[in-house]
């Protein structure tokens, strides 16, 4: 098991470093950070000064490792645009995103799992068809539209929840619904097919022959097997959500990492973009790793393999 964790952790680190270096290099070839800092109309000497001062004239790899060295010491550099340490910027915005991601993940789980399970228990009945059509609609509806509709209904017509902002928990209800709904189709379908597969397996027939029936059959015999692929997909979905949901955050005017990322890209704020990408990548690989570890805990074959 320790072996497994070490190997997976090493791979995850390599992936994170590769991606962050790639984006670092791309950014440096595509834009001129010195020009950005100096401003469009700045005289050439000033731009050159800045280039030297910030070290933009050195090779990309040197710059990257300097930056990475800073990151390892907890110094993510200073934002060109907001003129404050990137660490502070991220701290200000991360809370909203993490909160929204976790809330929307709960929404996904609370809708998709029961729907998928009941569809699998009664395949080709009205329950199943209802679940499938819900999934198809959720897939077809664009996020921003669903967001706007929810605002119109639950914030304007019936003012139950606030229209926008992120100061209280009530602000998170509608955006979490929107963001959560977007992952429902994938998770619900996987639950349905996975559980159908498990239910038709030989060991479930054995369990029935032993006298298992109803919820005990599902919860004590089938679910753990069906959970394995769901865990992996949920990890990926949570990764997307933590990576900042630009559209949802924009619609509800929430100050999350998604909006920070978009704004820093528009303003060529390289230190901020760099740091965000590194954080997103690390989040993703850590979540995948976590999913693998959870699966290893669920399934002895992976654990001991």
């Amino acid at each position, binding site marked *: 098991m320790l072996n497994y964790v070490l190997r997976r952790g090493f791979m995850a680190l390599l992936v994170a470093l590769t991606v962050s270096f790639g984006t670092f290099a791309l950014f440096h070839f595509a834009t001129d950070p010195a020009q950005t800092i100096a401003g469009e109309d700045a005289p050439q000497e000033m731009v050159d000064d800045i280039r030297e001062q910030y070290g933009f004239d050195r090779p990309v790899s040197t710059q990257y490792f300097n930056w990475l060295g800073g990151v390892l010491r907890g110094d993510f550099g200073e934002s060109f645009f907001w003129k404050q340490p990137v660490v502070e910027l991220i701290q200000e915005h991360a809370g909203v995103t993490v909160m929204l991601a976790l809330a929307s993940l709960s929404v996904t789980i609370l809708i998709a799992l029961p729907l998928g399970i009941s569809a699998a228990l009664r395949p080709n009945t009205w329950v199943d068809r209802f679940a499938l059509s819900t999934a198809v609609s959720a897939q077809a509806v664009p996020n921003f539209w669903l967001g706007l509709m929810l605002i119109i209904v639950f914030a304007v017509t019936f003012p139950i929840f606030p229209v926008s902002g992120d100061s209280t928990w009530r602000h998170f209800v509608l955006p979490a619904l929107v963001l959560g709904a977007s992952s429902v189709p994938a998770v619900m379908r996987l639950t349905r097919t996975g559980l159908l597969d498990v239910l038709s397996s030989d060991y479930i027939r054995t369990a029935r022959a032993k006298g298992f029936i109803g919820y005990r059959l599902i919860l004590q015999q089938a679910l753990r097997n069906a959970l394995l692929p769901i865990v992996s997909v949920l990890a990926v979905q949570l990764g997307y959500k933590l990576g900042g949901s630009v559209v949802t955050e924009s619609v509800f005017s929430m100050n999350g990492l998604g909006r920070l990322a978009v704004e820093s890209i528009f303003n060529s704020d390289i230190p901020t973009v760099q740091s965000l990408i590194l954080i997103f990548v690390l989040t993703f690989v850590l979540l995948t790793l976590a999913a693998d570890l959870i699966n290893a805990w669920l*399934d*002895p074959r992976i654990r001991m393999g």
Partner: protein
Amino acid sequence: MSTASILDIRELSVEIPTESSTLKAVRGISLDLKRGETLGIVGESGSGKSMTALAIMNLLPPSAKRAAACINFDGNNLAQASERQLARDVRGQRIGMIFQEPMTSLNPVYSIGRQLTETMTLHRDVSAATAEARAVHLLEKVGLPDPASRLKQYPHELSGGQRQRVMIAMALMNEPELLIADEPTTALDVTIQAQILHLLRDLQQELGMSMILITHDLGVVSRAADKIAVMYAGDIVETGNTTEVLKDPRHPYTQGLLECVPGYRNGAAQRLGAIPGIVPAMTGTVQGCAFASRCPRAVDLCRTDVPPREAVSPGRYYVCHDPVTHDTAKPLTVETAAHEGAAGPSQLPKPTVLTVEQVSCTFSVRRGLFGKRKPLKALNEVSLSIEKGEILALVGESGCGKTTLSRTIMGLQSPSGGSVILNGQRIEDLPPLQRARMIQPIFQDPYSSLNPRKTIGDIIGKPLAVHRIGTKAEQRAHTHRMMELVGLPARVFNSYPDQLSGGQRQRAAIGRALIMNPEVVICDEPTSALDVSVQAQILNLLLDLRDELDLTYLFVTHNLSVVEHMADRVAVMYLGEIVECGDRDQVMSDPKHPYTRALMDSALSISPGETVPDLGLSGDFPNPINRPSGCSFHPRCPIAEQQCRDKAPASELIDTTLVKCWKAGVSVGRSGNPSINESNNNMEESAP
């Protein structure tokens, strides 16, 4: 033992709706089982025997519909019981069930201990400790060594035989009154099969349990069942006392089935009987007798009228218009063409086609990232030779290296020592195309060994195209000739494999292997995926083709009655070594190695009245990565001594048989296991 009925089934039907119509899987059968009795249900695949078993406790697939006048289990009508009642009172508690596939029938994510104990705690108010104690007790009973520590293990850590033992223990947790065993040993090796059947019998006697044993293997029922019910196309066509039915079969189907079993009539030198065609799918309305289309005795009445149920004696009846009676009892379906048989190669010395010299094959296996590489000796200095026109059978249990050896012979695996010589040339030196021309395989599973996207004509003719032999038209003509030779109708030329039956697919595989006219054909379990009637057809075909085309076969199999029927010589493999090799009659009737002896004992020929022998083997087939010291068989050997543990024996020649055993030369050989003489006599006796 009381003679009261424990199970009384009347007019049980199972229907499965399909897209176009309804499949009648079980058609109104009636069964009766007394306390302590064993009923064997036999039939080919598709005969409805598994559906019958599942229907008793209503464990059928959700789409299947069950109907029955009554399923009386100890006074309770299970046909009327609700799902909840069945789950609470019957399933797993009063009726236990064992399924065919041990590899998939246990839940992979829960430990053995949990799966065993929950069977008990689900139904009874007992403490976890009590259930655990019972589990350990039963695991010990079913012969799993070190049962207490097994509880923590997971199914994937156990071998197939061990998992099946766990299944049996699980079914017995609540001391059921009835045990339903659906092909409990089909997926297992012969020695394990004998051990499991023996065990079931012991447990049954001890617990006074009744048993329904479902199998396609007539040898198994003949030894293990008191009563037998022969099923065909969803109906019981003949039933009665096992001895009576097998000694004096009345229904042409029962008789046909028996004729198909190698060794039933006369051992070798006989053509097997064959039942033409396949089990028809019972859809729509059934007119007359379902067997009529395949029956050699069918008269006009059979095609129009449902045959009557004729009682022979109490509890014994058959369903037929034109039954076999004593004066007509001759081999019905046996084609009369004289067959030279496997035993009749001419006495002239034939050239040796294939020689395997001291071939070793070692894989290195690593566990974990930092684990040490360990050598796995799949083959250990194996030597063999095959003469032109000969059939050499290679026998052994799974994991013994049969497949590695056949891959090495085909040149698909390079040996780490020794060499394979084909017609005087080392196989490594041959270019792949030439090698493929000289040596061709026929594989076990015709369902997966043929490309599903190619037509049969393409598949059979492909080697001609690869080797660029002849024009397109000539290749086509050649393919048609080959199809005729292997008995495939010309109309399937453009069919795809999934449109063919299993037997036809295997014929296509044989055609593909033979079209280049190879020197040696490697048949790797060519019939073990097939029903017995189809197996008989394929074995007949292989023998005919051998005579016609002067072919040489290396016949890899675990089925000893097939070996007895087909082979000229036999090589027995154990853990990557040939432990005995010699003429078929020598090896089979006077085995010298204790392992060969155990194998021969475990071959269950049809002999009602006999029981399943106790092999005296201890333990399971070892993991080749931890080879035992000395003779690799010593941990399981009933006659092993200190010498065997210390030093590996060399091959020596005894009565023209090569044997690798310290104790074979010493005359104690046969006294090691007294049942051996008995069982050999049985083989001869069973032939009428």
